[in-house]
């Protein structure tokens, strides 16, 4: 029981780290980026290649995945995404679905279709007992690591100059521009940060979520659920939604495997119908 709770929390934390970038692109740029899962997948593959073929330490891999995917995100943002910020949502969807298809085929081409495995460092393997409950060490690592990240993100958003510029740009891009904030640069940096976090999450999640070319498509639904249920007006909303989803998914697969996924999709649809701005969003003010 408690094991499931722990697994669920770790899983939720992972979902949040990956999905937070999606929440930001949606909230800030009003861009529906269905290719977000592909960024996470790239992070996962970078880790696999570096660890298994070049023997790089797992921790370095996490950092490299974060930076590399962040750079990829920044390049794509500058070259392609920014052209589509004001495009119709249909175009954004088509564009990002196209990217997803390309990434899936590319992953097939370079890495093959099989599940990729990584060997975690010895100190992260196995279980330890907490209050008499067996909990995987790696799950604890994920939970602690992500919790620190969440706090850091929250602080960065509320305490730093960049954070306040970002919030200003989210609230009203035009006003922010008028205040002399370089919205375009803020967008690019934020996009890079969001992509990087997805890459980091993908790297950490390779062991938990599994990694094969269909990753980009399989999990995007979960990331979207986190964002739509949590809303895009804060990062606490998606965070709570991710935890809920993580716990519900793990518990659902354990207790009611037949209808677990069904319930999750059903809850999402209900939330969308009754709280279109997300479960944790304040009523949109006009």
């Amino acid at each position, binding site marked *: 029981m408690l094991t499931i709770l722990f697994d669920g929390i770790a899983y939720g934390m992972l979902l949040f780290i990956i999905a937070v970038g999606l929440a930001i692109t949606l909230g800030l740029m009003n861009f529906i980026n269905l290719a977000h899962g592909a960024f996470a997948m790239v992070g996962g593959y970078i880790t696999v290649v570096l660890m298994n073929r070049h023997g790089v330490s797992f921790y370095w891999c996490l950092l490299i995945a974060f930076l590399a995917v962040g750079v990829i995100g920044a390049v794509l943002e500058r070259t392609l995404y920014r052209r589509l910020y004001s495009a*119709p949502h249909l175009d*954004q*969807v088509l564009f990002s679905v196209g990217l997803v298809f390309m990434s*899936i*085929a590319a992953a097939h081409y370079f890495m093959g279709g099989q599940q990729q495995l990584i060997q975690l460092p010895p100190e992260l393997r196995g279980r330890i007992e907490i209050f008499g409950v067996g909990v995987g060490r790696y799950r604890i690592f994920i939970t602690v690591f992500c919790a620190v990240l969440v706090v850091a993100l929250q602080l960065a958003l509320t305490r730093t100059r960049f954070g306040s510029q970002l919030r200003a740009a989210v609230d009203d891009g035009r006003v922010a521009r008028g205040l002399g904030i370089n919205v375009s640069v803020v967008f690019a940096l934020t996009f890079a940060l969001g992509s990087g976090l997805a890459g980091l999450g993908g790297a950490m999640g390779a062991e938990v979520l599994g990694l094969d070319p269909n990753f980009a498509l399989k999990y995007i639904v979960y990331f979207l659920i986190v964002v*739509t249920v949590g809303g895009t007006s804060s990062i606490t909303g998606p965070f709570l939604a991710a935890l809920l989803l993580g716990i519900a998914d793990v518990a659902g697969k354990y207790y009611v495997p037949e209808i677990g996924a069904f319930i999750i999709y059903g809850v999402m649809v209900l939330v969308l119908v009754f709280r279109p701005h997300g479960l944790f969003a304040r009523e949109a003010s006009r």
Partner: protein
Amino acid sequence: MSTMSENAGKVSAPVTESVAATQLRRLSAWRAFEIVLWVAAFAAIFLLPSHMLVLTEIAIVALFAISLDLILGYAGIVSLGHGAFFGLGAYAAGIFAKHIYAEPVTGLFVAAAASGIFGFATSFLVLRGSDLTRLMTTLGIALMLAEVANQMAWLTGGADGLSGVMVGPILGLFEFDLWGKTGYIYCLFVLFILTCLARRLVNAPFGLSLKAIKGNPVRAAMVGVPSRRRIVAIYTVAAVYAGIAGALLTHTTSFVSIDVLAFHRSADVLLVLVLGGVGYLYGGIIGAIVFTLLRDWLSVITPQYWMFWIGLVLVIIVVVGRENLGRWHTFLPNSLQERLARVVNWRLGMKLRGEQ
């Protein structure tokens, strides 16, 4: 007020009236390219006997894409889960043929009813909200349906698919043959009839009101268009169309794979429609031809990686701009352009209008 407008009508109507009527008549007149397209499609029965299977597939995809065009191109409703209705129709037809009655046309009606009811019920969920909520709601519904089909293996065959579907002769008269000729003729007839019906629908006041809702919802309400009712109606019709397309797939393959409900169906049909152009019905057909041929060609050159090229096509379409795609002919020399436009837009001796 009524007296004044009636007076105005009496004074000026005779001249203007006929002009207005002519201009409206032109909107719904058959155009040259439509006639050519249908003649070619029917001629293919005799001219391309060895390509019946791929032609059948094109017809089915075309019908599916037309159904998406009805909601996306006319009412402006984006959907990432239109495959739900396709899959539901496919399963309904399969289960009906397997357990109840093997005659396919009856099966079409059953599939249409099943998808239509489901479409009507879920239409209320897409009435409100932004594009994003609509995308997610439709996607969520499609995923739920796929999950249901997967879990109800006793009925649907689950992940193995529904096999053992025996499809009887059409109307008890025409047996499906090995080369797919009957299948193609069957699909083509259904496609033709449903396209003609859709044509009437979009050229009638109903279609105009849909375009109004898409074009400017605020003003549409302000001239008295009951948007909610219209969206429910067209969403249901589109679901019926998609369900029939799914049923055609079942009837021509005698099998239902869980794949009919997969996400990529919904994504592919979007691509098909965008390739052919949104909002004039024939985009679905033209897109289906281009898409199917493109995919077959790509999967011959790069058997495993054709998905990459399809993805690339999508990205390029968007980056170049969908509206520019329809303007490829502007790169042609002027004289050729004019001739082309005249041919394509010819309709009962009327002057052309730059549209699409």
